[in-house]
């Protein structure tokens, strides 16, 4: 079962919370999910709030025992208590938010403390911490107490802390939540840099552009189940290739629009400010060739034609809603 090619292999991974009587049915947070993460890739876990993203990360990062199913991380079974210490030395986690730091310690003191908890030899610590501080651009603020940090600085020191053991797998739970665009971009480029350096990154996010920009592969969770899986393109094309056609005409094409609607196509015409008419037609698959539709509008003096492919967000929303 051990595949050196994969950093993570999850099969039928399930987690149930409470109630307090074992064996009785509780809330199923993660319901039999299976996926594989290749070494060195950035793998996205997407889904609405409460879909089971954090629970999945907790299970994979040894913080929560799965109720059933299998999870191998770096070739080790996370359910086996004997593997936990060894595994913890090789992975790390960043949870979004402002908690989880010693506010009354400086950024550097926070890092020093965790360096010791990860058993980093004293002689290596100074250089390591210096390089991490420079990586997250906190050299100047290193000796200021964390309570005086901005939210972005706190998040960057979180990330520096998580890199203290040069983890082979880094779990990032919504790393850019609530941060300004510039800092978010900085964090995204840092994630790419880590991935280029061979670190496997597991990323949860609510920002589709972030997932699109970063993730090699991803799963979309809804109510604890996988509703979409694959590359960004796989996921986009999995929603039956819904596209929309936009045609702008000089004259009112309402007759054609009405006849299209009778054919059960989703078509709407609206009048634009510049005295032209915009018609939007949603097409499933190749319901009808674009050119054939275009021909219908020709008599109304077409000034432009455009096709809109679905975005990841469209696909995400469709999949998640289907999953409900």
């Amino acid at each position, binding site marked *: 079962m051990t595949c050196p090619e994969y950093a993570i292999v999850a099969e039928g991974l399930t987690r149930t919370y409470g109630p307090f009587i074992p064996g009785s049915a509780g809330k199923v947070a993660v319901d039999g999910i299976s996926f594989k993460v290749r070494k060195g890739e950035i793998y996205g876990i997407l889904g609405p709030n409460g879909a089971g993203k954090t629970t999945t990360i907790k299970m994979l990062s040894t913080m929560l025992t799965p109720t059933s199913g299998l999870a191998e991380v770096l070739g080790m079974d996370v359910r086996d*208590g004997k593997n936990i210490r060894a595994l913890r030395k090789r992975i*790390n*986690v960043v949870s979004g938010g402002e908690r989880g730091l*010693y506010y009354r310690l400086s950024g550097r003191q926070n890092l*020093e403390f965790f360096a*010791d908890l*990860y058993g980093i030899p004293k002689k290596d610590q100074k250089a390591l911490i210096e390089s991490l501080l420079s990586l997250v651009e906190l050299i100047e603020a290193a000796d200021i107490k964390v309570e005086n940090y901005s939210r972005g600085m706190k998040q960057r020191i979180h990330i520096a802390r998580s890199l203290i053991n040069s983890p082979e797998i880094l779990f990032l739970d919504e790393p850019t939540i609530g941060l300004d665009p510039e800092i978010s971009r900085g964090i995204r480029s840092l994630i790419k840099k880590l991935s280029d350096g061979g670190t496997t990154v597991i990323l949860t996010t609510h920002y589709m552009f972030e997932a699109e920009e970063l993730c090699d592969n991803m799963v979309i969770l809804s109510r604890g189940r996988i509703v979409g899986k694959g590359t960004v393109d796989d996921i986009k094309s999995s929603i039956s290739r819904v596209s929309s056609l936009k045609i702008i005409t000089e004259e009112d094409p309402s007759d054609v629009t009405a006849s299209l609607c009778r054919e059960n196509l989703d078509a709407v015409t609206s009048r634009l400010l510049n005295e032209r008419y915009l018609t939007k037609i949603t097409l499933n698959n190749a319901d009808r060739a674009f050119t054939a539709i275009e021909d219908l509008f020709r008599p109304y003096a077409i000034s432009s034609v455009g096709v809109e492919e679905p975005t990841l967000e469209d696909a995400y929303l469709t999949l998640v809603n289907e999953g409900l």
Partner: protein
Amino acid sequence: MFAYADSLQVIAASAKNSFINRFTSMHPALWLIQLLITSFFAMYFFVILSEYIGNPEITVAFVVIGNAVQSVAATTLYSVAEIPGVEKHTGTLGAIIQSPSSLFSVFLGMSAFGILTGIVAMLMSLCYAAFVFGVSFASCNFVSVGVILVLTCLSLTGFGMIIGSVGIRLRTAAIMANVFAYIGLLISGVNFPVSYLPGWVQTISHCMPLTYAVEAMRGAVAGAGLISILGPLSAMVLLGTAFIILAWVSFRYFEKASRRNGNTDSF
């Protein structure tokens, strides 16, 4: 005892963390003032109480020495026991569990501040005993006093850690610590002889290291050497060791339980 070669590094780092953390939230001078005031008034309160009641069996020296030892219970026990709960509150417990070091080592190290507080509180209290309340230390055996001081702190640290480990799971650890710290006033012979208590309470008294510490300290101040207080001293060593082992087991248990329940960050 320690399963990991790096435990000493972890303990030292955690001790350092506890000092920086506490001394940046409270200036060391303020911390000393707090200890000076609380150790004096805690002692003074019981002195005037017993003087007012006027039980001939209970002398000022009896109450003063009892409360000097009790000051360790009031400080060390509480500050050691509250640590896991505080870590949970700041949200750092998760990051600590996530690391490969054992919770026991981390929290043992973090107890350093509480241990220091206990030592300082007891030394201050003994000074008050000598210079304010006129207890004679002329025949005092200072070696015995030193040994008692160390053993008291260690056994109460172990006890505090057991209570503290519950704080990984429950919010009530700090309350339990406080209850135990106060109960010491009643059942450990701090303010009146243990023999005044009902038989079944006395049995509990003899499971508390504080009872032996108080007894040994009264002996040491009167001049008893290590040999003559060997009884209470060995009881303290025994109880202290048992507590530390139990604390280790308890941390292991709650560490595992937190994986089963995933409740490291609710508080």
